[in-house]
Every structure is written in structure tokens, then in C-alpha cells.
């Protein structure tokens, strides 16, 4: 039925092919790995990663630049602030916005807190996979202290949406300094404990030393970056090479590994957390000496946006979904004066008309005409063969997220 995988075609006749996943307890998420084994030795592996594809790009294409900020939280829920930051930086560069100093410092601070919590989570899972459950619990404990600091200021543990285009959403909490000091102190203690538990642990060393070795040349050729690249001995850190935000103002070292094995990747992350805590300690005193401005003055809003603040506009607001400026109307229901629209049948939302053989052509196509006050012909045709009568004819106000994209002729009838 399906074409054979490369690993199937190239398998040696004496080796054993084993399928792992897509739903395997050792994988944190759905991923399928096909393994070619010789005894307990893995000769070859092929990974199928599509099970977790969420189509962020497609979703974001259909949102405004401001709206899609919340999606960046979900890219990596352990360090949402760094993802907010990356997106905000890209937008600021495109718009040519200068961010106030205080906002830049708060960003650095929260990004470093996120980096530490991210590394803690990564190493927690790594240690747990090697059987060291204590390390997992210790790291989670430290992460909670850091997330307390983040929650206090941003109002959320994970989906923060705190770093905005042009600055940050609000100032840091009045108790921020004390909470940050507690977080740093507790994390330092945990790092010390973890070093003691793992660094000379024979079981941990046996499972990480000289396992998964990568040479610097290969790492670069594969496009590796971040701590994984540094573990091979390449001292490249984007914060140093292309400083963004205010990173060029702070002193920190770039820890590198020597052998590029799993143990070096563990050690680089451990050392990097110490450097992040160092940066945090440098930022906090600076923060008190900055002016309280948090958001850049921004741009003049488009005429349509201005008008919408006074009264609901008659014509749908045009959104530009890409930088090409190809204007098309997106979500006309949001600001249109027409409040009547129909929530599509559930089957229409989750399936398509063409590719659902079990239900195809079994039922007649349904046409629904919502009640029209002025008696104008304002019909919405939903051509789902499986639309159930429970959904028919009823009119709802928003939510717009459930509305069916439909032709211009059927919307905007006042």
C-alpha cells in the first residue's frame, strides 16, 4: 500500500527490523522510529515525525500579526517567553521599532529564567530515562521556583504571551527582586545536588559517556546549533555572535564540551544554567536604574483600525496575511456589521466533503437559510452531506473561530 521506507529497502539480510512507536512509553510524544538491529546494537534508524505536526504556519497565515503571538507560546510550552521574544524581535526588525531599555532588560531576564527552566526540564527527562528519578524531582522543584517568578510577573506559568511587539505587556511584579533571588538561590542548590548525583555516577556515565558522539564538522553540516553544537566543542552562541536585545551588555561564558557525547551535552547544559543565573544577577540591579517606559510608541494604526475604535465598521477590515501585501478579507465576521452567521456542522469542521468515503453521498446536501430581518436573500449554503439537523438554521453571535469561511456574497448583508 505505502512505499517502503529507506531503511526497509537498505536493510541488511541478517539484521532485524523493529518498529518503535508511534505511541511508545519512552517517547515523550508521538514519534515513530524504525530501527535496524544487530542484537542490541542499533545499526540504522529512520524517524517519522509527522504525528505531532500542528500546522502552526497555516494557522498563523490566517491570523493577524498581533493575534498569532499567542501561538508562539505553544511552540515550546516550557520556555514560551523565548518564543515570544523571537517572534517579537522579527516583527520589530520588520517594522523598525526601537524597544525601550527597561523592556529589553525585562526580556533578557525572563528569557534567561526560561532558558534555565528549559534546561532543567531537558536534563530531568534525560536523567529519568537513565533511571535517576531523584534528579527529575529535584529539577522539577527548581523549575517551580523559577516559574513562580515568571507567574508572578506575567500572570501565567506556561502560556505567558508577555513579550509583545514593541516591548513587554506590563512591568515586573513589586516583589520581583525577592522572588528572583529565591529562584536563583534554590536553583543553584539544585544544580549542586544534581552535579553530586550524576557527575561521577557509574550508571549515568555508562549510559552517556561516549554514547551518541558527534564531531564538530558533522554537527555543523547537520545544521546543529545551541547547546548540542557547543557540546562538540564549537564555541558558537547566538547571544554572543549576533547579540540581540541587550545581551552584549552582560558578562557570561560559553561552556563547550570536548567529545560531543551525551555526557558533554548534559554538562554543557548544566554549565549554561550557571551562566544564565549569572546574567539574571547582573540584570536585576540594572533594572532599578531604568526609566519606567515598557512599550515603544508604536506605529500609527491604519485608518480602518482607528475607525473601529469609534464604531463598528460597515465594511470588513482587510488584513494582509503575508508581507506581499496581498489583501484579502480574513474573518469577515469579526468586525462586520452582520451579526448573524451559522456555526458549521461539526462534520464540516473536522472532515472534508470529498475524502470521507464512509459518509459520501449518503445524505442529501442541505441548504440553510438563516432568518433575515429585512427579508433580503442572505442564504448560507453548507454543502456537507452529513450536516445534522441539530445545527441547522440556528443563528449565533461569535465565536468567529468556529465560523465557516464563506463567500463574500453571503456575508456583510446588513
Amino acid at each position: 500500500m505505502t512505499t517502503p521506507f529507506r531503511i526497509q529497502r537498505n536493510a541488511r539480510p541478517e539484521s532485524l527490523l523493529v518498529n518503535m512507536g508511534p505511541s511508545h512509553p519512552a517517547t515523550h510524544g508521538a514519534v515513530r522510529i524504525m530501527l535496524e538491529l544487530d542484537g542490541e546494537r542499533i545499526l540504522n534508524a529512520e524517524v517519522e515525525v509527522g504525528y505531532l505536526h500542528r500546522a502552526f504556519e497555516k494557522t498563523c497565515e490566517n491570523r493577524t500579526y498581533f493575534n498569532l503571538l499567542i501561538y508562539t507560546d505553544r511552540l515550546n510550552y516550557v520556555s514560551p517567553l523565548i518564543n515570544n521574544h523571537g517572534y517579537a524581535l522579527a516583527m520589530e526588525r520588520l517594522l523598525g521599532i526601537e524597544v525601550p531599555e527597561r523592556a529589553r532588560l525585562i526580556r533578557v531576564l525572563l528569557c534567561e529564567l526560561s532558558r534555565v527552566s528549559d534546561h532543567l526540564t531537558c536534563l530531568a527527562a534525560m536523567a529519568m530515562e537513565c533511571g535517576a528519578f531523584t534528579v527529575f524531582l529535584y529539577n522539577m522543584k527548581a523549575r517551580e521556583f523559577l516559574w513562580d517568578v515568571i507567574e508572578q510577573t506575567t500572570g501565567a506559568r506556561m502560556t505567558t504571551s508577555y513579550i509583545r511587539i514593541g516591548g513587554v505587556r506590563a512591568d515586573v511584579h513589586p516583589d520581583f527582586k525577592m522572588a528572583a533571588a529565591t529562584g536563583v538561590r534554590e536553583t543553584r542548590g539544585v544544580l549542586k545536588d544534581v552535579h553530586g548525583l550524576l557527575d561521577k555516577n557509574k550508571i549515568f556515565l555508562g549510559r552517556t559517556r561516549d554514547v551518541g558522539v558527534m564531531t564538530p564538522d558533522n554537527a555543523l553540516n547537520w545544521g546543529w546549533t545551541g547547546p548540542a553544537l557547543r557540546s562538540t566543542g564549537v564555541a558558537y552562541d547566538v547571544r554572543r555572535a549576533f547579540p540581540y536585545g541587550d545581551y552584549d551588555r552582560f558578562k557570561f561564558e560559553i561552556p563547550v564540551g570536548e567529545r560531543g557525547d551525551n555526557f558533554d551535552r548534559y554538562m554543557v547544559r548544566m554549565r549554561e544554567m550557571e551562566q544564565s543565573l549569572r546574567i539574571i544577577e547582573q540584570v536585576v540591579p540594572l533594572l532599578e536604574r531604568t526609566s519606567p517606559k515598557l512599550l515603544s510608541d508604536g506605529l500609527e494604526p491604519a485608518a480602518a483600525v482607528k475607525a473601529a475604535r469609534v464604531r463598528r465598521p460597515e465594511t470588513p477590515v482587510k488584513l494582509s496575511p503575508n508581507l506581499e501585501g496581498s489583501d484579502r478579507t480574513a474573518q469577515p465576521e469579526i468586525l462586520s456589521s452582520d451579526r448573524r452567521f451559522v456555526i458549521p456542522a461539526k462534520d464540516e469542521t473536522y472532515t472534508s466533503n470529498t475524502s470521507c468515503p464512509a459518509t459520501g453521498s449518503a445524505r442529501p446536501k442541505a441548504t440553510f437559510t438563516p432568518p433575515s430581518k429585512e427579508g433580503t436573500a442572505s442564504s448560507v449554503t453548507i454543502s456537507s452531506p452529513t450536516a445534522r439537523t441539530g445545527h441547522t438554521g440556528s443563528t449565533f453571535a461569535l465565536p468567529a473561530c468556529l465560523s465557516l469561511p464563506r463567500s463574500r456574497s453571503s456575508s456583510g448583508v446588513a
Partner: protein
Amino acid sequence: MEEKNDFLTSLAARFPGAAVEKSAPLGDEMLVIRPDDLLPVATELKTGPGDFVSLLDLTCVDCPEKAERFEMVYHFFSLRNKRRLRVKFSLPGSDPAAASLTGLWKNADWLEREVYDMFGVAFPGHPDLRRLFMNDEFEGHPLRKDYPFRKRQPIIPMRTP
């Protein structure tokens, strides 16, 4: 900085149709080339004085209004020169194809599979050009602008009551 620019302009001069664009507020340097020149230009970028050891990203943009509908975007990184470069070219809407860079950078393998999956751009020379994310039975290319936002293609049909 002068020397760096010299390298790029001399590279552009050797390939007709290539042009260096530097959009100053947007940062990174950009090289616009003809699609046929991709492989020689990429080889030169990697082995020449530019020393672009890493392919940071390889992606595609769909601009359905344009005659040359697909715009391929490559991001290269040079560790020694601490430099990033963006290379772009356009492809027609029917049977778009670009040379595969898998022989030069290993991560081009999956990146090209992703672009093939999401945009339907073919990469002649790729060792195993299959869909990366979607299943084999999937019809169409989801990141093309004309693919409906809410269209679903369930492998197992939705249950009806």
C-alpha cells in the same frame, strides 16, 4: 566588512542574473539568483572563501498572485566569518523544481522533504524524496495558499451516529 562585500559581489558577477541585495534595516545580506545557478552557487558558498558551513534553514513562500509563484529561501551561516546569508530565487507555479543540496549539507534532506510535502516543490537529486509530515495518502500540499484552511483528510473516516 569591505572584504566580505567584495566576495559576494564577485560571486554575483560570475553568475549572470545574480544580484546582491542588502536591505539594511532588515539585517542579513541577501543574494538573488537564477534557479539553475543554485547548485554551483551553493557549492561556491560552501567551499569558497565564504565558508558557509551550515544550512540554517531552507523553506519556501507561496505567492499565488505572482507569475513565478514559489519563492525558495535558503539561510546559510558561516562560523568562521560570523556571517549569515540569505539566498532566494523564484520558481514557476507548474512543476516547480530546485536542485537538491543534500550532497552539500546533510540537513537539506529533511528540509527539502518538508518543502516537497508542504509546497509540492520537487528536488531532483534528493536520495529519498517522500513526504515528511503528512501521510502518503494525503492529497495536495497544505501550505499552499490555495489549500483550504479548514480542510481535513482523516485516515480513518469520522464516525457517524
